[in-house]
């Protein structure tokens, strides 16, 4: 087990992502953040907080993609997690999806399906804390905290103080 990001590095990565979101969208007027529960939702809140400190507040919500997964039948039923769309909606907005780890890309595919049910954003962008490679779908992130090359047998564990009591990212060797 190796720690690849510590608390300070996570904070700096999220702050940099916040700056990049502002730069890329030429401001924040049209930006909506949607975190994918569980940990993506906390990361979304944190990025929103940085955006507020740097520039201005943005609407932030959560999007549970469980019911849109394509691997539902491969595993036991999962509990549903909260979905909370900001009152401003997503119609015509620049939606930034936030997740902890980008791996196969299937979560993001499900999130795009879920978004399509809700409305038609102007653009959809993706922010992830860790991109570990091994994509199975043509999906990429617009904002990446850290690229971490991994073997498929390894797993990446993101710990966040909100639920795990500490901030760090670890690589755990596979079984």
């Amino acid at each position: 087990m190796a720690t690849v990001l510590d608390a300070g590095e996570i904070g700096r990565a999220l702050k940099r992502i916040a700056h990049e979101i502002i730069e890329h969208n030429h401001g924040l007027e049209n930006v909506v953040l949607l975190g994918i529960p569980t940990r993506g939702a906390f990361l979304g809140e944190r990025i929103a907080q940085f955006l507020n400190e740097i520039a201005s507040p943005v609407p932030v919500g959560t999007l549970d993609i469980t019911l849109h997964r394509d691997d539902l039948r491969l595993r036991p039923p999962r509990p549903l997690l909260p979905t909370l769309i900001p009152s401003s909606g997503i119609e015509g907005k620049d939606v930034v999806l936030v997740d902890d780890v980008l791996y196969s890309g299937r979560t993001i595919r499900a999130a795009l399906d879920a978004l399509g049910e809700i409305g038609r954003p102007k653009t959809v962008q993706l922010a992830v804390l860790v991109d570990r490679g091994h994509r199975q779908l043509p999906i990429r992130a617009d904002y990446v905290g850290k690229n971490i090359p991994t073997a498929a047998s390894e797993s990446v564990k993101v710990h966040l103080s909100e639920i795990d009591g500490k901030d760090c990212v670890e690589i755990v060797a596979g079984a």
Partner: protein
Amino acid sequence: MNKHLLSINDLTAEGALEILNTASELAKISDGPMKKLPTLRGRTVVNLFFEDSTRTRISFESAAKRLSADVINFSAKGSSVSKGESLKDTAQTLQAMGADAVVIRHGASGAAQRLADSGWISASVINAGDGTHEHPTQALLDAYTIRSKFPEFRDNFSGLRVAIVGDILHSRVARSNVLLLTKLGAKVTLVAPPTLIPVGVTDWNVDVSYDLDSVAREVDVLMMLRVQSERMADSYFPSEREYSRGYGLDLDRLNSLKDSAIVMHPGPMNRGLEISAESADSHKSVVLAQVSNGVLVRMAVLYQLLGGAAFAGEVSA
């Protein structure tokens, strides 16, 4: 969760709360942004109804469709059942058509259990009412409705007082509700004329009263049951008027309830018999909320039974 939902006894308190919590999340999604979810795409749900039903069948159909399942409605009237086809042959026909879940309502107690245990079909079986035995999804939607009206009892009904009033003897709704509400910690009182109280009630972990007026003042939830005339070959009470006077919810009794109390009825209502029109339409009545919550709770049940791998027991990981 098990492969089937035949009885409230198939569920632990945690399992029941998980269904209610799933329904709560589904409520947030489908009241708001997403009306239709792709979750059960390609799955087939058969509504197998040997008894008449309005809301249960429509509710299951609507729940399955909102999750994108294909729905086949089968009612005994107009089918080969009227030509004398047995439950076994009907079930095997459904099996051959590839049903993933069978929602069954049948006049015989234990019909759902028979279908599940028989080996005739591999589908999940959901009991939508079997004779005078059980109606588990009704109890779940009632618990969901209670919880949405009393948020302080969200994870535990202990301290909640519920009276179930009327034709307990013939009521599968009462049986399932007694099992579920007591499992969640509520204190349940059954109120009915002695002729309509089942014999085995002493084992039920409930109080029994013959006096509605004294109970009504005390309770948070007053659940009125339909007088099931179709199951009454004998006379259980002298006249409808007398029943109504002793055990019907009229305006005086409605006014004697606590301010916060709610009135429930599983439907269909016999207005003027067990519940007066004023009571049925009063602001304390949550009858229509029960109907709309029914769809959410049945979506949650279908998701838990069909949303994952074939069923939890088959998954090694």
